[in-house]
């Protein structure tokens, strides 16, 4: 019964970067940090891809939105 299960592929379990290193503070005034959580187009990367935990993803999303408001980060990058 269990044998006909398709082989499951596992990647390395991702760990939330902010839980792993509590010295890193999420701050909208630090666009260099926030840049690694948006695509080159400026869109936020979902937590399922970056591995950020829900609490930190919420803080991150808020920080990115604030950062955009004061033109430290782009809303969209058009080539």
């Amino acid at each position, binding site marked *: 019964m269990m044998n006909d299960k398709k082989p499951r592929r596992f990647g390395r379990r991702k760990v939330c970067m902010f839980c792993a290193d509590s010295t890193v503070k999420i701050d909208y005034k630090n*666009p260099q940090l926030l840049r690694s959580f948006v695509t080159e187009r400026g869109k936020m990367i979902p937590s399922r891809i970056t591995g950020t935990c829900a609490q930190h993803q919420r803080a991150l999303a808020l920080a990115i939105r604030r950062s955009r408001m004061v033109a430290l980060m782009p809303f969209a990058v058009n080539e």
Partner: protein
Amino acid sequence: MALTRSYRDQLNSEREYEMITILAPETTSDDIKVIQRRVLELMERKEGRLLTLENWGRRRLAYTVRKHRKGIYLYWRFLGHSELVAELERLMRMIEKVIRYMTILVDANVDPAARPEAVTEEQLNEAATIVAYDSVAEPEYEESARPEAEEAEEMGEEAEDAEASDDEDKE
């Protein structure tokens, strides 16, 4: 003392705010001095206190704001109440040099005695001098952070595949 005070806040506590204002790139030091004076006047009237004022220099904006590609960033940190914020933002709208402002509540129920620092004359003068800021870190991120994110993306897809096959099994 006819100030609007929040009923939610503890008695005799203050709120700590930070405000970023972006000034048009052609703003002069004298203009900044005038803005400083008007803000300080207002804070005195509304019983707030300016803790720090920083000038982040003339930076490139991530997008154009009122047709400006660059702007001078001022970072204010102060104690006060909602009424002060409302008045400050009104003032910022009236000053034409200010092209963007944003006020953020940092902390509520702050004991004013716990934040003894007050803005110094030196800081005010420093904030009035405009320096060009060149973002050095800008091209660096594309090399360092990009490959990692792409790799992560693949892993994310794998996880989805696994989930999908799970569903099939159930049926």
